[in-house]
């Protein structure tokens, strides 16, 4: 184990997989000479050369399509889009080709492609640069979606993503790059897809946090315990496809209450989707409606005061959780 930042864990995962498989290559804007807009690929060009660490022009749709073409013919591209906001320019290639060519060609080819990109609000970048799109990509059959919230998962999930034969949308978070964690340095370490992490054990309520919101949920859970005597079980699904619904349902069967926390918009969000699945498959276990805490249903404003109330913080998670318990717990709120 070694302590390192989320971005260093990603860097290590990339280096190890580049080392392991000569057909793995990286491409993206400013990833080579510049080392990546968030410095995730720093040093890789010196080590692996320009053939495998490729700077691209600003042509997102074509970069993804090029990656798909090379994946269909035997390579394993790892594409960095500078942020998830720019992936909107590549939706045609991501949805029509990366996600669908295997199916529409009757299984003749696979697309072992990873598209890495960070998302998230909090830097006052306004409506076009603050998106959270895990729900958008979760919507598409054919794609896998990973949302690592810790340095360890960042490394372990990225290695799994690169080894997987499906196209993987790998969503990092801008505010997590600098966070530290204990990360295994064993090159065989991976985190499997479809296995949720229980971040905190508890028996009163299940709180599911997506991407960075897994951390927000954990902090909220500590406050709920301290201030209200509510022991929350915090689950980080880590991958939204494949989805470890079993772990979620088992937890809800125990706690009988559930709150889902995400940074994205409420309509058609991850929480909407999970709430539907939980009520379909765990209705009898529920003592209260499934709660959702989401980003507000508006574009992201620039003003700091407005931006900060546009995505969830601990307070909203605590409030939504208390609402599931009715007045009894609410009354004890400090």
């Amino acid at each position, binding site marked *: 184990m070694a302590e390192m930042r989320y971005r260093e864990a990603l860097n290590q995962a990339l280096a190890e997989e580049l080392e392991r498989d000569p057909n793995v290559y990286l491409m993206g804007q400013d990833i080579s000479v510049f080392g990546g807009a968030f410095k995730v690929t720093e040093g890789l060009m010196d080590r692996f050369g320009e053939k495998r660490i490729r700077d691209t022009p600003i*042509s997102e749709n074509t970069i993804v399509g090029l990656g798909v073409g090379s994946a269909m013919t035997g390579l394993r591209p790892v594409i960095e889009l500078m942020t998830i906001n720019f992936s909107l320019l590549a939706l045609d290639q991501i949805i029509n080709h990366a996600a669908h060519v295997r199916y*529409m060609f*009757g299984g003749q*080819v696979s697309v072992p492609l990873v598209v890495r990109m960070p998302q998230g609000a909090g830097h006052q970048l306004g409506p076009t640069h603050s998106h959270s799109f895990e729900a958008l990509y979760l919507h598409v059959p054919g794609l896998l979606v990973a949302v690592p919230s810790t340095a360890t998962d960042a490394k372990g999930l990225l290695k799994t993503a690169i080894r997987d034969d499906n196209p993987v949308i790998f969503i990092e978070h801008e505010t997590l790059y600098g966070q530290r964690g204990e990360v295994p340095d064993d090159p065989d370490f991976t985190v499997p897809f479809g296995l949720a992490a229980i971040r905190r054990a508890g028996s009163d309520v299940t709180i599911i946090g997506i991407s960075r919101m897994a951390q927000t949920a954990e902090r909220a859970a500590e406050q709920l315990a301290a201030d209200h005597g509510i022991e929350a079980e915090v689950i980080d699904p880590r991958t939204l*496809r494949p989805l470890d619904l079993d772990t979620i349902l088992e937890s809800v069967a125990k706690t009988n209450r559930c709150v889902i926390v995400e940074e994205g918009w409420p309509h058609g969000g991850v929480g909407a989707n999970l709430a539907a699945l939980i009520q379909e498959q765990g209705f009898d276990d529920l003592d209260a409606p499934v709660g959702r805490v989401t980003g507000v249903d508006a574009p992201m404003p620039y003003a700091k005061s407005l931006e900060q109330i546009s995505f969830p913080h601990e307070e909203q998670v605590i409030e939504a959780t208390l609402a599931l318990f009715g007045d009894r717990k609410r009354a004890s709120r400090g």
Partner: protein
Amino acid sequence: MADRPLPPPETAVEWLESMTLIRRFEERAGEQYTRAKVGGFLHLAIGEEATIVGAVAALRPTDYMIATYRSHGQALARGSEPGRVMAELFGRVDGLCRGRGGSMHMFDLERRFMGGFGIVGGNLPLAAGFGLTSDYLGSDDATLCQFGDGASNQGTFGETLNLAALWSLPVVFMVTNNQFGMGTSLERHSAQTNLQTKGEGFGVPGMQCDGMDVIDTWAVTSEAMRIAREERQPVLVEALNYRFRGHSIADPEDYRSEDEVLEWSKRDPLVTFGDRLVAEGILNDEQREAIDLQAIETVDAAVAFADASPEPEPSSLYDDVYVLSDQVRGWYSADHRGAGVQKGEDLS
């Protein structure tokens, strides 16, 4: 275009056979569409056979070929079994893509026919990707990417040509200029109508061929492929041709005159090339007729094969959405029709 010499007789006959097969196949596909055996859209390549056969003849078996939603002919020219192409149109299990793709999405990996693609301009980046693989693996395979004049206005056209030139990828981009982007004529959709020049600003030199002439198409494409393969220089080839039918079956063709269609039909590539083979003593009239009858017979057999092929099993609906791993315990797919466990789910 100057008359180029004929290729060796065997080759010339093969080309005529291939073009005739495509013509008869397309005619029959149109007929099956009107009988509701074929659904969705149906884009026929009648009139464009020389562009298809000439271009494919310039490829090695290991070269990659990629085309558009009008690509039954490309699959046939690459050697795909006509029965399997027809079965795909019928949406049957023996179709090239097991009934998942239909007319617009033919694909035959074994023959490196890398697909028909339904989104205009969407296939260009993929072609560059194939070129990158060839380059990366140090092979001398090259890629031929066909697309229409309408696609030359898409962002992917400029983006891909720029990247292909920047990275010296062995790709030939062939813009099939059939004079119309669906129902909008060339001069109404492109400021630059000399399409072979459209790549120059991106560092991609242009060439032009007579897409109604199989020999000229073959010769120019061959040279372009040589440049791409040996000089690692992408090339843009403009193939001038004309489709004799509408954009799709559902096209009333109000945007062009009968005279124009009639004028172009005088240059029907099957007729002109067949006439020449007879005139130069490669074929007699009987042999020429026999080629046509053979094509009709092949297409008859293709229709029978497609008709006999079963519909895909409902239980196969989720096949190939994902490459499933037995290492993964989570759900890949949620099915709203019930709470039952679907294939690929809960493998713990």
